[in-house]
């Protein structure tokens, strides 16, 4: 789900369908009986595909725990002939302070810092806009909504050059000023990445959250209006709590998207360990130390472990909200 903003929309839907599939898995008995009769070749082919799809990741995982010398000289599939287990690779990429090691610690902090706030900003701004689009009625607002929806088709690449120019004109002086004021904040800071990710996420976020928020029963909103609640109160006390599933789903989705991003980071981060996220560091390691497999395997696994954890751990939650938000017409 990494590199495409608008096209990523159905990822939510399809995660949704995993659950739908689970539900229907134990559907009718006749269906199950029929299944027993389907050909054995089908089972064998699907087994082969499943194994093919797993082997590359598995090889990487196994290798990351093998001593450097063994990785260099033998294939990971010979692990039983050439046994060896070590955590040195992880220790090296994470904690070693030697200049040759990738020192991933600060990049992990960067990835977390970038992803957290670049998730929070579009989440709040998009839900505010979605609320206005759904519940404050004016003629031209619908056209504005359609326009925002249509913006999803603009590829990221269309925005990069001018946005970088805007940032270096307006944001750079501010960053320099902040650095003078608080010296421990480096001159390159997270601000451009936070803003860029938030900007690019908004059209999709508004669209998804609007689908959900516009479904809140109008009785609820109108009752609150009659009781004299302001829009601000309704938004915080009624809309946000009711939209929690959609908010959580979008948050998880956006978090993984930002975490996995390379393009935006390459352009707006400056590439130093003050700002650059894990993906950028990993890509850089491939470029400069493409043969250091003991480091590459461990570093790659570190960079994919958080998205995988989110994927396995929060699948259900992810699923429910986005399904509700996106299959609805």
């Amino acid at each position: 789900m990494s590199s495409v903003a608008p096209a990523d929309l159905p990822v939510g839907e399809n995660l949704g369908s995993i659950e739908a599939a689970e539900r229907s898995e134990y559907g009718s008995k006749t269906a199950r009986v029929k299944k027993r009769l389907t050909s054995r070749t089908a089972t064998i082919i699907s087994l082969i595909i499943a194994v093919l799809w797993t082997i590359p990741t598995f090889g990487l995982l196994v290798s990351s725990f093998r001593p450097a010398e063994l990785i260099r000289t033998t294939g990971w599939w010979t692990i039983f002939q050439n046994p060896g287990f070590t955590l040195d690779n992880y220790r090296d990429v994470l904690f070693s302070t030697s200049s040759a090691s990738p020192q991933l610690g600060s990049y992990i902090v960067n990835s977390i810092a970038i992803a957290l706030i670049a998730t929070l900003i579009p989440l709040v701004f998009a839900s505010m806009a979605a609320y206005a689009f759904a519940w404050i009625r004016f003629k031209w607002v619908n056209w504005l909504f359609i326009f925002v929806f249509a913006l999803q088709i603009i590829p990221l690449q269309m925005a990069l050059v001018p946005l970088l120019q805007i940032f270096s004109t307006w944001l750079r002086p501010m960053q320099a000023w902040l650095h003078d004021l608080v010296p421990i904040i480096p001159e390159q800071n997270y601000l451009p990445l936070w803003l860029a990710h938030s900007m690019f996420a908004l059209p999709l976020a508004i669209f998804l959250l609007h689908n959900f928020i516009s479904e809140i029963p109008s009785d609820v909103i109108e009752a609150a209006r009659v009781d004299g609640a302001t829009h601000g109160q309704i938004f915080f006390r009624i809309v946000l709590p009711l939209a929690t599933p959609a908010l959580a789903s979008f948050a998880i989705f956006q978090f993984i998207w930002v975490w996995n991003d390379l393009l935006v980071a390459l352009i707006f981060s400056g590439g130093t360990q003050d700002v650059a996220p894990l993906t950028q560091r990993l890509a850089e390691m491939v470029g400069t130390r493409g043969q250091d497999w003991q480091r590459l395997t461990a570093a790659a696994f570190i960079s994919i472990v958080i998205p995988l954890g989110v994927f396995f751990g929060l699948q259900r939650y992810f699923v429910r909200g986005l399904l509700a938000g996106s299959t609805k017409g």
Partner: protein
Amino acid sequence: MTTADLLGKLLQVVMGLAVFAAVVGLLIFFIDKAPKKGRDYWQLGLFLLPAMLFIAIGLVYPAIRTSLLAFQDSSGDWTLDNFVWTFTQPAAIRTLINTIIWVLLVPTISTAVGLAYAVFIDKSRGERYYKVILFMPIAISFVGAGVIWRFVYEYRGGDREQIGLLNALVVAAGGEPVQWLQTDPINTFLLIVVMIWIQTGFAMVLLSAAIKGVPTEQIEAAQLDGTNGWQRFLNVTVPGIRGALVVVLTTISIATLKVFDIVRTMTAGNFNTSVIANEMYTQAFRASEVGRGSALALILFVLVLPIVVYNVNVLRKQREIR
């Protein structure tokens, strides 16, 4: 990372949160204190303000500016040179051809494999685990996937033992090891494999849900008519999931047109593997050829546009039928 560095980073996050909270708080304050006259306008405007401001600065203005830059040379004069370059230089033409190969192969193969897999595992025992296995790569970053597959394609010269799986298989079959990523044109296809590896799970999950939506009565009726499994698949299942097929194909096509990270990580576009999105980055941000980069971005947009329009149309029609 020194303690001061970490402290600086934490401070940035805390300050970021504080400023953001202040902005939102201020907005809500003004929303609730809006003047009586034209109150709804005020409130609507303030609710929309931050998002619209971000979209205007981050998307609308840049998109317009990029479109103009594509038709300018470095001194700002109007010209078509950027497009002439794109369609005449051998390297640039190769980029376009590669992109076409990508967009022809990735959507079709991912969808075909995903569909076959979805049909085969449908209602079988352990369907859930089968699905998770194929779907997992979607959570992995393209950079991570790039490293995973570079390891598979790794080459060892001389008589040394191969540590890359692909070359090990070649050697085991009696062949000579190949420098896969440096060998044109096979390298482009090997990069495409990575994208297929990622996208197949996506296709599979979407199609699997669609297959479960095909009414069992139709399939049973076809069964009573004495059709075999293949005929039922072609004449009942496929028509029943046409909408989902279109969505899957178009979505993967768009993602493929914009593929950047995989090429960047695995070959950086060298050895004739570049694609539009990668070339756009290289030209605009490495070679300082902003005009050429903008032209490539515009081409990308023009390529994506009809697919999206088609996709939206199909979705709308489906909705009308329902």
